[in-house]
């Protein structure tokens, strides 16, 4: 079992990143907290099986992800996107525009990004995980990670750009926004 010092170190070092990852998966604070707690509870219970301290971080992230998948009973893999299908022109936003955004608006924009793109994006921004680490964690090919990062950035910028236009403009989830475009 993980001793108290190790556990405290693990909490201090990784809980913020784990919470961010959980938030990107669950999309709300309560479930993100519960996922984070569950991952650390399992560390307490199964920590003795971890002989290499350098693996604690990846173990925690993987465990949290599996707990989430268990919750959602998702057995099927998320759709695979080939590199060639991704568009590379990101929506126009400026550094000044981003600077002016409040945390609430950024959070809303993040939650409007589809989950399959939001999760790797959060791992990339928050944890600075490499494409290889993200691929290992989510069990998807490297090319898929790259395409999801690209699409995630594009969706996030669309939302941030929409937010910056004015408070009167409501932020819509991507699918909803696309449906609205099609109906016009």
């Amino acid at each position, binding site marked *: *079992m993980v001793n108290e010092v190790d556990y405290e170190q693990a909490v201090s070092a990784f809980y913020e990143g784990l919470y961010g990852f959980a938030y990107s998966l669950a999309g709300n604070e309560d479930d993100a*907290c519960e996922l984070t*707690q569950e991952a*650390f509870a399992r560390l307490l219970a199964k920590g003795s099986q971890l002989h290499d301290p350098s693996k604690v971080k990846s173990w925690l992230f993987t465990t949290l992800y599996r707990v989430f998948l268990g919750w959602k009973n998702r057995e099927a893999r998320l759709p695979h996107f080939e590199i060639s299908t991704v568009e590379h022109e990101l929506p126009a936003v400026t550094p000044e525009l*981003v600077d002016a955004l409040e945390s609430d608006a950024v*959070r809303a924009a*993040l939650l409007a990004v589809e989950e399959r793109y939001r999760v790797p994006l959060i791992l990339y921004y928050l944890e600075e995980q*490499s494409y290889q680490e993200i691929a290992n964690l989510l069990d998807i090919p490297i090319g898929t990670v790259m395409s999801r990062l690209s699409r995630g950035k594009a969706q996030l910028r669309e939302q941030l750009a929409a937010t910056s236009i004015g408070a009167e403009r409501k932020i819509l989830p991507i699918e909803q926004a696309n449906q609205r475009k099609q109906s016009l």
Partner: protein
Amino acid sequence: MNNQEAKLILEAYRLGGQDAEDPQFQEALEQLKRDPELAAWHTAERAIETRVQSKVRAAVKPPAQLKATLLAQRKIVRPQPWWRQPAWFALAAAACLALLATIWTVWPKPRGQTEFAQYRSSMAGTKIERLDLMSRDLTEVRHWLTQTNAHGEFIMPAGLTGKSSLGCKLLEWKGQKVSLICFEMGNRQVAHLLVIDRKAFDQPPADTPQFAQIGDVATLSWSRGDKVYLMASKHTSEQDLRKLL
């Protein structure tokens, strides 16, 4: 590699420069040196991405109490997790949660119900993902409930004495704590005991246990001392349930 492919790859290139030596990026990085247009795009991208990263980090902050909660949970998490215990125990726990879901499905809805019936409906409708504590040791369950300022001192029905507990979960109804304790009855049968303070109701149930059959769930409810008790078990007759009192 054309510029579009290079851009896609460079979007995965981390801002801190950790990927500078990664062979996956070498061709795209070489192209940056050769193509001024691509280099300008990359410079502009980094300026925006640095700010976006900073904003995302600020936006996704854990709640202030989370770290303290995580540090505190090492006091209550047991060293022997439920998934490493015998299969029947996990099955029984699953049955415990399944019963709650069933109660929720078949229990009458609040309209026109007494306050106590509303309480039963509300409790049964609570989404249960897992028990807070998985333990066969009732002393441990009581200790955990006491630590959480719940109902560790509940009066155990005589018929449950000697039965192995599965664990407990803390629920809430209108600001009042509700303790749920699950018991293994054998043959994959599970009995549930829900305990709440009597003061939660203007008209608490009588001291004599009252039976109610709801779908395939048998229930008994009664008041004793300053607590109100609700016992439930699936596929159980009134006679068998009363044996647990």
